[in-house]
C-alpha cells in the first residue's frame, strides 16, 4: 500500500474540518490510523497464514 492510499483512507477517517492547521486531535488520529492499519493488516495476514497451515494439516 502506498502513502497515497494510507492518506486517502486516514483523511476520510480523521479529518472533519480543514481550518488554519490540523488540530492535535486530528494529528494524533492520523498517526494512530496508520499504525493501527498496519496492525490490522499484520493481524489478518498472520491469522490467514495460520488458517492456511491448519487446513493443509501441517
Amino acid at each position, binding site marked *: *500500500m502506498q502513502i497515497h492510499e494510507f492518506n486517502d*483512507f486516514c483523511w476520510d*477517517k*480523521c479529518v472533519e474540518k480543514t481550518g488554519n492547521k490540523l488540530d492535535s486531535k486530528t494529528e494524533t*488520529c492520523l498517526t*494512530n*490510523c496508520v*499504525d*493501527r*492499519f498496519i*496492525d*490490522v*493488516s499484520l*493481524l*489478518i*495476514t498472520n*491469522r*490467514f497464514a495460520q488458517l492456511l497451515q491448519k487446513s493443509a494439516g501441517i
Partner: protein
Amino acid sequence: QVKQQIAVANAQELLTKMTEKCFKKCIHKPGTSLDSSEQKCVAMCMDRYMDSWNLVSKAYSLRIQRERTNM
C-alpha cells in the same frame, strides 16, 4: 506456476480488501494500540468476510452454470 501466481495475487487481493473492510467495521477511533476487543472484532470480521467470499463465489458459479445451460 502461472496458477500459483494467480493464487498468490488472489490471496493478496483478499487480504487487502479484508484489512480495509475490517478496519472500517472494527476501529472506530484509532488509539495507541489495538485493544483486545478490537482484535477480537477483526478476527471475527475476517472469518465472516471469508464466509461471505465463499457464498458469493458459490452463487456466482451456480449462476454462470445456469446461464450456460440456458444458452
